[in-house]
């Protein structure tokens, strides 16, 4: 097997460069054709163009970067923690809980005049609450069973789904449209204010996830061997769940469910870097940011003037890539 043909710092540098290029490209591309000149402010495209770029496209691109980074690095954490290549952030109930929280707000009209804030806040509360519930359910005497988390997560997801379904039956037409858009995931609502609200969560999550890189490497060897090497296994698991909930909860709350980024990106990264989380985590964040910016740009322009939900794009591209990765693993991974 080939192990890391490029050095990890080279890969990180390349990804940073790509992120810059995609970011600038995404600013220049859109429904109103503004060239690169407008992006750099070098032509006389005027105030409207500036406004489109600084107030509409820039927050959206920035949000896509943050969301992609959060989802992909969370996915990498989950896969390491559960030693399961299929694990994604949704596994700990964040997405389904957030969906239920948001649906409650949308359908029952709890937000009133503040609906644009109430929906994400409801989603955030739902996501964090269901992660907490799952953690409590899977922990006995301070020891968390990852198997129970996976199984109970499926059950909790189905249950939240059922409740959300009941709410959908009660929904009127506008609520139904909001709900549908939300479950498919969209970055159309990105504003600088929302990014400001998102940042504190993401900063705390980034610190937690960063600290976890080395323990996650040890956890790949199993809880027992990690504990024998002096790692505080249960504390690491708790921090990992908290970090993932803090990273994905608010993103899902604002943008809805954006699938496949969390599963596929870390796999692609490991193909390049190998399993070391000190490299996998930052590279996943970078590649997640790049790919979600690309996906969102496609979502913006593929059906002008309509704005396709970005979740549709990530699923349409992510699902085939995922199957390809699985087929590849089937052929290459067979041990002894």
């Amino acid at each position, binding site marked *: *097997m080939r*192990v890391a043909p490029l050095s990890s710092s080279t890969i990180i540098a390349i990804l940073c460069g790509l992120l810059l290029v995609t970011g600038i490209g995404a600013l220049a591309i859109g429904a109103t054709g503004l060239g690169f000149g407008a992006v750099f402010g070098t032509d006389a495209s005027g105030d409207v163009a500036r406004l489109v770029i600084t107030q509409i496209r820039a927050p959206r691109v920035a949000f896509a970067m943050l969301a992609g980074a959060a989802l992909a690095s969370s996915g990498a954490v989950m896969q390491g923690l559960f*030693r399961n*290549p299929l694990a994604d952030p949704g596994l700990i109930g964040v997405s389904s809980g957030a969906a239920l929280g948001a649906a409650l707000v949308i359908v029952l009209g709890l937000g009133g005049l503040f609906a644009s804030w109430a929906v994400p806040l409801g989603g955030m509360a739902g996501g964090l609450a269901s992660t907490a519930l799952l953690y409590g359910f899977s922990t006995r005497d301070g020891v968390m069973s990852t198997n129970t988390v996976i199984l109970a997560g499926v059950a909790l997801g189905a249950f939240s789904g059922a409740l959300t379904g009941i709410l959908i039956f009660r929904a009127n037409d506008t609520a139904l449209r909001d709900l549908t858009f939300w479950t498919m995931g969209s970055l159309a609502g990105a504003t600088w204010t929302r990014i400001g609200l998102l940042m504190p969560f993401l900063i705390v999550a980034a610190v937690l996830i960063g600290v976890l890189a080395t323990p996650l*490497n*040890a956890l*790949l*060897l*199993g809880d*027992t*061997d990690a*504990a*024998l*090497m*002096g*790692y*505080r296994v249960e504390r690491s698991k708790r921090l990992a769940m908290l970090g993932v909930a803090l990273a994905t909860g608010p993103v899902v709350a604002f943008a809805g469910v954006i699938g496949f980024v969390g599963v596929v990106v870390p796999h692609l990264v*490991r193909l390049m870097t*190998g*399993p*070391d989380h000190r490299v996998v985590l930052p590279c996943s964040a970078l590649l997640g940011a790049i790919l979600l910016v690309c996906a969102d740009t496609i979502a913006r322009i593929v059906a002008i003037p309509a704005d396709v939900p970005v979740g549709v794009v990530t699923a349409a591209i992510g699902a085939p890539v995922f199957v390809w990765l699985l087929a590849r693993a089937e052929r290459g*991974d067979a*041990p*002894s």
Partner: protein
Amino acid sequence: MTLRLEAVSCRVGSRLLLDAVSLEVPRGAMVAVVGPNGAGKSTLLRVASGLIEPEAGDVTFDGIPLKDMTPERLAMRRAMLTQDSPLRTRFPVMDLVRTGLRGVPAKQVDAFAALALRRVGLADFARRDVLSLSGGERQRVHLARVLAQLEAGALSDTPGLLLLDEPLSAQDLPRQALVLDIAREHTRRGGSCLVVLHDLNWAASRADSIMVLSQGRVCATGPPHAVLTPDMLKETFAVAAPRVHMHDRSGRPFVVPHDITAAQASETERKAAPCILP
């Protein structure tokens, strides 16, 4: 380092897995634990490593109770090769060995890992993927990781305790000797070693003393010639007509498979053995 267990009992649910087990592994000594399947050997190692806290009794390293030591400190004083690893992910051999090396200056990590791999005879495997190795090679990679962890701990203290749970289970004959010689090398340098073995002959040929565990109790303990006796084979392992031979050159006892028959190890025989829990 000296490991001491005093009247250690351990329970899961209502089942007593260890019943007042006492044991000392002095500095420089290798103690082998033998006993039937399910006797509690792995449980004993888990207690001695601090992975689980006993329900009663004391476990100490050089007189310090394990429960007073932090996980980081424990990791410097002892390392353990477990019976099996759930690793299912691609992992380069070198990186796996490196995970055992905490608190080693970054510049020395590679040298430490390479040395550990050389000791277990896998110097050329550093860049291979763990999943592509044979079972025996993989077991030795984990042994290298464990040795590296002990070496890292010994940077700031005396050599620690090596705990090995059936380390020969996947090894061929010369590698079985290699593994036990590595353990003896560790004790010669002032470390100590507690090793679970199924092969009584390997235990008798290398260990300073043998402890026989059955149904959570110590049936016998002492130097090989005092422990590996026909009576012990009959009572603990339910061997029908046991014979023990003496090796001329080493003066250590051994048994041959030709004398052993399988049918005797049935449950009814085991229940008739003296080491039964109430």
